[in-house]
């Protein structure tokens, strides 16, 4: 658990419209602005110290969100969540990322990149610039020191597509893992695909494999449970005394009354929710080795700080 959360790194903005739109760009509060190569001087003249964008230096990511794939046979009717956290976890901070996102996805993309502490650039539609600016402002307002990522599953990654899909579905099911090079006893469960315990052929069915991992870990040991939403994914940072719970809503709408359970007993908790003034945790309980609370309403992103 040596990978530390990069608390201060905010996503940058890629903007390919003319410098005449500089005022709109300034309103986003973006600390890093990228523009097409050759336009840096014009932007500087407009008051923005922009950098040239070189796509070759970035890994392009799919737009985050959900899809309802009615044509795909599945064990459930759960929506298909397009989330990129598993890619970032797999890359281990070695990559820089680029999102080219449709309307209403810019804030979500920024939140996702922030939660995983990666260097990312978001290219929004013009009508999404205010929302991106609002999210950047919110992210900037989140205080506190960087904390280690919390996970209790270690998984050895062979780099294959199959393992990638397994990572995706572990994230999808809020199973907290780290990609590791070798088994490590500090994890409750070490997953090495191709062993007797985790046969390679099982990984071909990523959904089933994620279920297998969950069974072997047991629900009692899960670090995070979410009740009342199929489209919210979480990530944890923390130390012996506190936990920061990041909750990202990929669904596009608001989620009401979501119940969250975090393993471990924390007597105090508070929430900050994007676009949620006066947000507060309700029905807070320390129970059976876990801490539970309700978030009355959240939109794209909420961060919950728990302390012993």
């Amino acid at each position: 658990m040596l990978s530390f959360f990069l608390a201060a790194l905010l996503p940058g903005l890629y903007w390919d419209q003319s410098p005449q739109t500089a005022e709109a760009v300034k309103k986003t509060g973006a600390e890093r602005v990228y523009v097409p190569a050759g336009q840096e001087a014009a932007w500087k003249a407009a008051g923005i110290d922009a950098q040239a964008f070189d796509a070759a230096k970035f890994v392009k990511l799919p737009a985050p969100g959900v899809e309802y794939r009615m044509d795909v046979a599945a064990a459930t009717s759960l929506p298909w969540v397009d989330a990129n956290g598993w890619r970032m976890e797999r890359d281990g901070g070695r990559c820089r990322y680029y999102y080219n996102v449709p309307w209403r996805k810019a804030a979500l993309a920024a939140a996702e990149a922030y939660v995983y502490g990666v260097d990312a650039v978001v290219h929004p539609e013009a009508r999404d610039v205010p929302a991106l600016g609002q999210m950047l402002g919110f992210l900037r307002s989140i205080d506190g020191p960087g904390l280690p990522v919390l996970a209790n599953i270690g998984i050895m990654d062979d780099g294959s597509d199959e393992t990638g899909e397994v990572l995706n579905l572990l994230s999808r099911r809020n199973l907290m893992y780290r990609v590791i090079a070798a088994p490590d006893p500090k994890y409750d469960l070490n997953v090495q695909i191709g062993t007797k315990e985790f046969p390679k052929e099982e990984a071909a069915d990523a959904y089933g494999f994620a279920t297998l991992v969950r069974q072997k870990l047991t629900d009692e040991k899960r670090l995070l449970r979410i009740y009342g939403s199929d489209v919210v994914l979480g990530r944890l940072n923390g130390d012996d005394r506190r936990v920061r719970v990041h909750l990202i809503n990929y669904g596009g709408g608001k989620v009401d009354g979501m119940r969250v359970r975090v393993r471990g007993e924390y007597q105090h908790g508070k929430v900050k929710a994007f676009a949620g003034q006066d947000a507060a945790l309700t029905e807070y309980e320390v129970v059976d080795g876990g801490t539970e609370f309700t978030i009355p309403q959240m939109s794209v992103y909420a961060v919950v700080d728990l302390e012993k």
Partner: protein
Amino acid sequence: MIDDMKRRAFLQAAATAPVALAASLHEDLPKYRIVSRFAPAAIPGMPGPYPGVVARVHAEKSIDEKSEKVDVPTVREMIAQGMRALTGDADARDSWARFFNSADVVGIKVNCSGAPGIMSTPEVVSEIVRNLGVVGVKPIQIWIYERFRDQVDSVHYDRYVPAGVHIWTAEHNRGSIAGYDPNTYVDVNFFGEDDTRSNLARPVVEHFTKIINVPNMKDHGASGVTGCLKNIAYGDFSNVARSHSGIKTNTYSLIGTLATVEPLRSRTVLGIMDGLRGVWHGGPFSPSRKFRFYPKQMMFGTDPVAMDRLLLDVIDDKRKAEHATSVWDRSLAHIKSGNGYDDNPNIDRYIREPGHIEYASTLGLGVYDLDKIQVRKIEL
């Protein structure tokens, strides 16, 4: 802001032993964990003071089959006679007073899953509200409730009851659990789903002292029939459709298990099964009128198992008369995906589980054996 609460979850004593007994009979059942801070009442509402007793009132003129217009005076008489037959009182007011008084906050659990084609008939609900008023329960102490807002809105109960009666739904937005109590739930993992909790509707925990269960007489593609047990179970808990995500469903054991959860079990003190209309295929919905029929009867009791046992025969007899597969038929030959179920009474989506009623009897919820059920029949 934060309560430092201790856990008060426990497996309910009243339910644990029967569950263990049932599990020994059905060892492949899912493992259920019931979490509630409520202890059972000395005499839980189900099966209540009249186990194995059902008052059954039939009135030919209760509803016009062509127009589906309800005859209100007849419904009033059916309810009066049914309540008297159940309790043995000469005056229906005394019958109602056995169950309710002016201090009660009463939830009326309607069923609107088939609305607007079939639902707890507004005229029936109106008469229940009127009788509650007679024994001193004010409109503001009465809640008509269901899970889904869109279904209830289509019925317009507000047009049939006095101002002040609450009309409440748990889910304004489908899937939201804001309307459910986070501390009263059944935890079970059926197929690896991530959300393993089904939570009890908040007003059952926070407001009601008593509940009247008002189901319809309907076929149900997964559970066989839907009557008292299913209406009070699946109609009061979140996240229950997951029990029928596959051809072989878990309705067999989940319905009864949910009905045992306190305080739901103790507070559900009266069942009035509204069989003016019925659905013999396609339930619990009623998209096509061709599968509706008109039993023109109502059942009254405190024992949901006994009432549902009678319902089983009502639905199965009708299906036989219509040359449809029996609710007991477990053949896979009739099961097809797609929309055929909605139109063809010999196509099913799931293996029906009418055995859920007998299973509920093993949880102590009532009497299943027909020979031990006392039916008090009234013909108007």
